[in-house]
């Protein structure tokens, strides 16, 4: 029998990486929040690789941090290795990547949630939405408890009608043999949401005691680790290395000989898997001439000997998996502790969402993370914080928050999802961003801290620090502009750097624009009067060195924004616009873009269609204005 349980402002269903960010955001924004999850031991669990960050993903973690989210702070507390990737490339694609102690990561996150005011963490299985007059007003749990709320955020990850597949073996399950969430999928469908079936997978884990590391290459962390959060100033973590090995001819033979038992090829898997993260059997079939594939052995934590075998993601039967593992140099005698598996799950077709991550069909219902067709902890967390922010703002009667494509990778991702949809689990890549040079990880705070502060997720103290940083960077750039230097003053430095001689005096800023000259070199000649941190100096250097390219992209952004600012009225009736093809009408009706800019990114909508809409809107506005008079 059901009973009336407590009412909340916001209920968040699921406590993975999306759910925890959503719940922390709403609670911190002053909304009484309940975070309900099937198993409290799985809060912020990493069911796949024990790492966070990397290109684009690391950028998102920094953006979450700038908005006042938790992922950056939490990984800074719990990493066992930190590496800056892409250091040989431009500043826009430098990317921080951490190996996590996945257990400590969970514990720290759970503790943060437990100690956050307004936030109730509750174990339970949500089975039903309560929808009244097209608005989601609560949820019902398996135990019959009816919880009322003003807004609900669903973050079901791979639990939603989850099914694990391993060779011939298939069973209903969430990740890592957790209980799946089945009835909620039916409830979502009953309320009119279209669901699709996606698939992902994970490799086996082995016992480190049984690995022969002498046959592998060591992959250590950076000597001086950097951090994701601007609040983390230092860490005394002792780092643990990863190890690199490769598949062998034998591995490939085992797989090829047993393809008939691979669910990927036998037709047992109906869900669409991610292209960027294929299983090893997929890789070997598709890239048959590649003689070996990299395998990274990654420790799962400080207090465990379990190792994650990155590169060996598979849904082969258990006996084949064991053979495969043992065919890898260094793993000849490895003890397999957990099997790899494929998992299928239900996801919401993301074009059913507004860019706020609220569903168009049901007011007050938000979705975030893998349920929206993405993959990856960072992608999930990035959506989680946005869904949380918008749920809270709706409850408080405030304007929604949308991050633009030129403001953050989070904006790129959400715009892609809600405008174009996705045919396979969506992963962020830096190449998805048109304005990559503007969306650097080093300026994530400059891009988004003001928003985080305005929303109420960034403390006054941190905001003042941010303003100070911004001011000092600007002052220093100004100073370098104004500092003139004579050829003989700079000659020794230029000679030493192998840089061309200066023919006549000029602003020192032009010297810094030379690729071979760094800010720290110039410091020896004309030290700054300001007290600058390393981070500020880096910012000064990047902004000066890449000014030409940055300005070019800013110009493009300005043009884009003109289109983004042309809003389309919510009540527009596309069927009334003559001159649009039926296909375009259908697509526009489905996506219901908020602006001309968004409309122009819908696949199949042509420039001529956009012109037609513009003319129609002008017509509409003039008619409306006349009626007003």
């Amino acid at each position: 029998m059901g009973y009336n349980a407590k009412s909340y402002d916001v209920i968040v269903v699921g406590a993975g990486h999306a759910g925890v960010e959503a719940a922390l955001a709403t609670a911190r924004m002053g909304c009484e929040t309940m975070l309900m999850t099937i198993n409290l031991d799985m809060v912020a669990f990493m069911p796949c690789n024990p790492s966070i960050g990397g290109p684009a993903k690391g950028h998102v973690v920094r953006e979450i941090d700038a908005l006042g989210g938790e992922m950056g702070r939490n990984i800074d507390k719990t990493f066992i290795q930190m590496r800056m990737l892409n250091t040989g490339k431009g500043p826009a694609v430098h990317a921080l990547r951490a190996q996590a102690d996945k257990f400590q990561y969970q514990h720290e996150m759970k503790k943060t949630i437990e100690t956050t005011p307004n936030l109730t963490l509750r174990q339970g299985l949500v089975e039903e939405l309560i929808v009244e007059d097209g608005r989601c007003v609560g949820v019902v749990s398996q135990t019959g408890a009816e919880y009322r709320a003003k807004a609900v955020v669903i973050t079901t990850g791979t639990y939603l009608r989850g099914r694990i597949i391993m060779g011939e073996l298939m069973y209903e399950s969430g990740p890592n043999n957790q209980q799946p969430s089945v009835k909620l999928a039916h409830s979502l469908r009953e309320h009119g949401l279209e669901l699709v079936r996606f698939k992902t997978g994970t490799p086996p884990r082995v016992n480190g005691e049984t690995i022969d590391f002498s046959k592998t290459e060591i992959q250590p962390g950076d000597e001086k680790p950097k951090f994701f959060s601007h609040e983390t100033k230092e860490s005394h973590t002792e780092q643990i290395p990863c190890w690199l090995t490769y598949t062998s001819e034998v591995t490939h033979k085992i797989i090829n000989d047993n393809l008939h038992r691979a669910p990927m090829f036998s037709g047992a898997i109906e869900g669409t898997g991610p292209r960027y993260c294929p299983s090893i059997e997929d890789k070997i079939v598709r890239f048959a001439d590649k003689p070996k594939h990299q395998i990274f052995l990654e420790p799962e934590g400080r207090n465990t000997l379990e190792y994650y075998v990155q590169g060996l993601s598979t849904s082969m039967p258990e006996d084949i998996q064991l053979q495969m593992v043992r065919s890898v140099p260094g793993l000849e005698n490895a003890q397999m502790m957990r099997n790899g598996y494929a998992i299928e799950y239900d996801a919401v077709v993301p074009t059913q969402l507004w860019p706020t991550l609220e569903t168009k069909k049901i007011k007050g219902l938000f979705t975030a993370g893998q349920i929206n067709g993405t993959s990856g902890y960072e992608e999930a967390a990035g959506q989680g914080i946005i869904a949380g922010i918008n749920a809270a703002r709706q409850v408080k009667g405030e304007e929604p928050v949308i991050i633009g494509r030129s403001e953050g990778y989070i904006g790129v991702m959400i715009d892609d999802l809600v405008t174009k949809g996705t045919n396979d689990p969506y992963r962020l890549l830096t190449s998805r961003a048109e304005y990559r040079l503007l969306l650097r990880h080093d300026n994530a705070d400059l891009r988004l801290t003001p928003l985080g502060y305005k929303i109420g997720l960034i403390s006054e103290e941190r905001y003042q620090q941010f303003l100070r940083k911004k001011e000092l960077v600007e002052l220093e750039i100004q100073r370098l502009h104004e500092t003139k230097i004579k050829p003989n003053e700079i000659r020794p430095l230029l000679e030493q750097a192998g840089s061309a001689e200066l023919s006549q005096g000029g602003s020192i800023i032009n010297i810094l624009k030379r690729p071979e000259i760094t800010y720290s070199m110039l410091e020896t000649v004309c030290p700054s009067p300001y007290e600058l941190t390393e981070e500020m100096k880096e910012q000064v250097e990047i902004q000066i060195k890449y000014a030409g390219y940055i300005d070019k992209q800013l110009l493009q952004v300005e043009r884009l924004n003109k289109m983004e600012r042309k809003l389309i009225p919510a009540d527009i009736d596309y069927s009334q616009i003559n001159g649009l093809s039926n296909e375009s009408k259908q697509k526009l009706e489905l996506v219901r873009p908020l602006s001309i800019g968004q409309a122009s990114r819908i696949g199949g909508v042509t420039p001529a269609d956009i012109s037609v809409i513009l003319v129609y809107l002008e017509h509409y506005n003039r008619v409306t204005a006349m009626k007003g008079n």
Partner: protein
Amino acid sequence: MIEHDTIAAVATAVGEGGISIIRVSGPQAIQAVDHIFKFKQKLSEVDTHTIHYGFIIDPKTNEKIEEVMVSLMRGPRSFTAEDVVEINTHGGVIAVKNVMDVLLQQEDIRIAEPGEFTKRAFLNGRIDLMQAEAVIDLIRSKSDRAFAVARKQADGVLSKKIKDLRQFVIELLAHIEVNIDYPEHDVEEMTSAYIREQCDKTITEIDKLLKTANEGKILREGILTAIVGRPNVGKSSLLNTLTQENRAIVTDIPGTTRDVIEQFVTLNGIPLRLLDTAGIRETTDVVERIGVERSKSAITDADLVLFVLNNNEPLTDEDKQLLETVKGKSVIVIVNKMDLENNLNLEEVKPFLLNASIVKMSMVRQEGLDQLEQAISELFFEGKLEGNDLTYVSNVRHISLLKKAKQSLHDAIEATYMGIPIDVIQIDARSAWESLGEILGDQAGDSLIDQIFSQFCLGK
């Protein structure tokens, strides 16, 4: 499509009338034209609604391109309510193309979308409400037509070449991207030398295309194709068949003063300038001989010879003499009148033209045209048409986009020498790819991501 930038297009019907008008509208209109227009004053300083005589020049070389009249209308008192400059050139295709060519090399200026001037006029309040539907219809019909034309071109050889070029650039892009997004992956490290090599190769190919465009050969002439044969084998009916059946007749240039009739046709996207060398034979008649001499020189100039024989008659001495004159040319032998009895021994023809393909046709029954198209296409695709390699970039828009792509690739190469990191160089390479894509009407979209995952083996 971007609002508020500066657009240009020919405002008069192409090829009609003694004067053509190129209209430029938008914030950069005056500045852009000022840059390429040489006259006594500066356009930015003259009064609005005035007209000026002068020359369009190539700002890089200062070379005079065309003699023009330029009128200036500052917004909002103009058709679009923006700053508008109109360049009046001599009529005809060439003058317009020459002017558009330099105009589109200016920064921040692009070819107008179909109906875009009218659209702007409406959006800026210059056209009243009643006409909104008409504006929509105009945009629709014009862009549908443009689309149809683009589709036609997309079937052709140019399209294949551009696709190849794009593929080249996208592989480079995918390579750069995989280095960035999968830094620990064991793919080949991207080096400056590799980027330069790829960009250089692409530039070389673009140059080949542009060279022919610059020569303007195709612009005016197409593949110069002579239809050769003794009288009454069916040359004129072949010409008629080709021009009537076919399809996109670009323009007619009647051979008013010559005995050679010229016709433009586009066959499978390949532009042909057909010369019917009517009446070629040894003759004592003075007037006729002049005609015959012209015909012979037409053969000498021709890039392609369609040699017509009569299936109904044995090979004559006259045939043999003519076959002698076309030796060494790219020749397709057309055996006409297949509807009649076979009296022609093809074995006799072969010694003259060892590699020529032979197409059997019947003009009366309209048979064999497909095979002819096929033969011409093959000759063309395989680059056997000497001196005519890829000479089919004729469209101003295509030329300007090719030049843009080339410039971007140059920028990319230059950046590698300056030690600019690959993710920044990628910006230039990407805009080259986008410019090439614009030629085909493709939107960027997902294809780069698709390329990355099909080219490289990635995963966890």
